[in-house]
C-alpha cells in the first residue's frame, strides 16, 4: 500500500507536467484545428531561457558552461534572477515565441491545407530542437527546483512521501486552470477566443478580431507549455531530448482525454503519468521502456473511444 501510494504520487507529479503541455496543445487544437508538434520544443527553448536567466556565468550544468549567461550578466539587470522570477521570464519568452509563431508563420498559411500547416509545425519541431542543441549543446543541465526540494521536504501520508515539489506542481497547475478559466469566462478576449473556437467565420463576421485573439491564444498556450519545461526541474534534468519525450506523453494525454477538451487534457495527463509510474512495478515493464504504457493507453483509447474520454465526435458534410 505504501509503495502503491508512493508510485501514485510520483506518477501524479509527472502527470501534472504532461497535463500542462497537453493543455497547451488542446488550446491550439480547439481554436485552429491544428496539432502543434512543436509545442514541446517551444517549451524547451523557454526552459533553457529560464535557465540562462537564473544562472550566474559558469555555474549551470555539470561543469559545462551555459551559453548566454555571460551575455545575460552584461545586459540583463539584476542577473542572475531568483528561480521564480526566471521561470516567469521563461514563460514570458515562451509567450512571445508563441505569438511570433502565430503572427509570422501560421497566419500567412491561413486557408492553406492542414497538411502544409502540420508540415510547418514539424519543421519547427526539427528547427527548434536543432537550435537548442546548437546553442546549448547536448549536455544534461540540472534545473533548480522552484519548491523546497531538500531530502526532508515531504509530507508523510500512509508512509508514502508526498514531496513538496509535487504539491507545488499541483498548486501551479491549479492556479493555471483557475486563471485560464477566469480569462476565458470573464474577459473580453476570452469571450472572443470562445467565439472563434465555436464558429470562426461567424465570429469574424460579427467583428471579433480573429487574428489578434489567436495571437493572444497562441501566446497563452505557449506560456502554459513553457511552465511544463520549467517545472520538471528538480526531478528530471533538462537536455535537448527531454521535451520530445514529454511531448509524446502530452500528445498521448490529449488523445486519451479528447483533443478538443481542456478537462480531457488534464485527466489524460494524470492517466498517462499514473500508467507510466505504475506499469513498471506491477506489470514488470522495465523503466527504460516507460514510453510503452502511455503508448498502449493511447492505442487503447483510440480503439475504445476514438475521440477521447471528453472529446466531441466531429460531423462532416460533403
Amino acid at each position, binding site marked *: 500500500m505504501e509503495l502503491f501510494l508512493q508510485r501514485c504520487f510520483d506518477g501524479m507529479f509527472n502527470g501534472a507536467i504532461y497535463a500542462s503541455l497537453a493543455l497547451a496543445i488542446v488550446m491550439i487544437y480547439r481554436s485552429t484545428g491544428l496539432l502543434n508538434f512543436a509545442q514541446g520544443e517551444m517549451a524547451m527553448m523557454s526552459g533553457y531561457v529560464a535557465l540562462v536567466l537564473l544562472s550566474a556565468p559558469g555555474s549551470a550544468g555539470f561543469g559545462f558552461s551555459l551559453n548566454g549567461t555571460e551575455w545575460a550578466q552584461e545586459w540583463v539587470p539584476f542577473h542572475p534572477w531568483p528561480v521564480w522570477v526566471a521561470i516567469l521570464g521563461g514563460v514570458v519568452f515562451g509567450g512571445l515565441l508563441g505569438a511570433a509563431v502565430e503572427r509570422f508563420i501560421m497566419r500567412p498559411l491561413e486557408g492553406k*491545407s492542414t497538411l502544409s500547416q502540420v508540415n510547418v509545425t514539424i519543421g519547427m519541431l*526539427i528547427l527548434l530542437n536543432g*537550435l537548442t542543441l*546548437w546553442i546549448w549543446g547536448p549536455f544534461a543541465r540540472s534545473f533548480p527546483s522552484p519548491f523546497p526540494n531538500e531530502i526532508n521536504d515531504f509530507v508523510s501520508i500512509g508512509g508514502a512521501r508526498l514531496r513538496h515539489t509535487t504539491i507545488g506542481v499541483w498548486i501551479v497547475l491549479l492556479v493555471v486552470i483557475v486563471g485560464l478559466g477566469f480569462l476565458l469566462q470573464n474577459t473580453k478576449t476570452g469571450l472572443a477566443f470562445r467565439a472563434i473556437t465555436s464558429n470562426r467565420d461567424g465570429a469574424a463576421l460579427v467583428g471579433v478580431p480573429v487574428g489578434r485573439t489567436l495571437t493572444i491564444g497562441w501566446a497563452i498556450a505557449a506560456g502554459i507549455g513553457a511552465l511544463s519545461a520549467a517545472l520538471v526541474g528538480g526531478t528530471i534534468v533538462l537536455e535537448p531530448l527531454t521535451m520530445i519525450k514529454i511531448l509524446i506523453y502530452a500528445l498521448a494525454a490529449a488523445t486519451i482525454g479528447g483533443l478538443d477538451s481542456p478537462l480531457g487534457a488534464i485527466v489524460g495527463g494524470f492517466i498517462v503519468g499514473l500508467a507510466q509510474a505504475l506499469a513498471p512495478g506491477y506489470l514488470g515493464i522495465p523503466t527504460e521502456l516507460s514510453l510503452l504504457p502511455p503508448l498502449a493507453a493511447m492505442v487503447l483509447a483510440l480503439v475504445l473511444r476514438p475521440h477521447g474520454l471528453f472529446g466531441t465526435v*466531429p460531423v462532416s458534410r*460533403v
Partner: protein
Amino acid sequence: MTALQKVPADLSEPPDAQERSRWFWPGWMLLALVIVIPPLIAEPLDLNKLSRLVVLVLAVLGVNLLTGYTGLISLGHGVFVGVGAFTMANLIDQGMSLFVAGFLATVFSGIIGLVLGLPALRVRGLYLALITFGFALAFPPFARRLGSWTGGVTGRTVVNDAFVPPSFLGLDDHVHVWRYGCCIAVVALWFLIARNLIDSRIGRAMRTIRDDEAAAATFGINVRALKAGVLAISAAMAGTAGVLQAILNPYVSHGDFDAFLSLRLYAAAVLGGLGTLVGAIFGVVALIAVPAFNGAVGLIDNEAVVFGAGLILVTFVAPAGIAGLFHRKSGNTPAA
C-alpha cells in the same frame, strides 16, 4: 476524308504524354547519367555510401506515397526501416537466401506497419502522425531490450557473404558495383510498382481520400481498407530500404533508427515534393546536399536547423517541393 475521322490533336498522344513537363526527357537523361557515372569513377567505399543513400529513396518514396498521395502523415518510417533491417539480419541467420529473406523481411515490415497503424486509421485526422511518432521514439529503447533479435546495446553484425556477384558476370573484383546495381534495380522495381499503383483506379481512389475523405466514402471507396493497404505498402517500401541497408553495411544497431531518422525521412519527402514520384529522389538529394553544403560553407554546422528551416521555407516558397519547381502542371500535387 470526313471531319469525323480526323483525330483531335490533343488525343493523338497517350494521355500521360500530355502531362509531361518539358523537363521530362532532359530529366531522364540526367538521371541516367547520375546513375551510371558513380560506379565508373567512385572508390568502393564512396560507392557503398552512395548505395546506402540510394536505398533511402525507398523510405522517402514510402512516406511520399502515404502523405503525398493519400494524405496520411507518418512520422515513424524509420521504425519500418529498422524492422526491415533487423528482420533481414535474423532471417539470414536462419540460412535463407538473400532474395527470400529480403522478400519476407519486406512483407514483415508491411505487416508491422499495418498493426501499428490500424488503431489510428479508425479515426479521421492526425492520429496516425501521433501514434507513429510515439513508436518512432519508443523503437530504439525497445530494440535495445530485444537483445537476441537486435544485438542489444552494441548492435549486431549481418552475414552478407552471399551478397556478391555471380561468378559468370566476371565482376569478382567489383563487388561494390554489383551491390550498387542491385540497389538501383530494387529501387527501380519499387518505383515501377508505385507508378502503376498511382496510375490505376486505386491511385485515383487514394487521391480522392487525400482531397476529401467524406466524398471518397460517398463514391463507394472503402476508405479504411484502402488507407490500411497503402500504409502496409508504404511500410514495406521502408522495410526494403532497411533490408538493403543491412546487407550493404553489415552492422545494424538500434541507434541507427532513432526518431530523428523518421523526422528526416518525412522532411525529405516534403522537401522533395509530395505527390510526385520524382519528389522522393529530390528529397534524398536534399538529404545528401544539406550536409555537403554545411561542410562546404561551414556557416551553420547543424543539419537539423537547416532541415527544419528548409521545411518551413518550402511550405511558403514552393508548396509542391523541389519537384514542383519543374512542373508546369501541378494538378497532381496536393492542394497547398
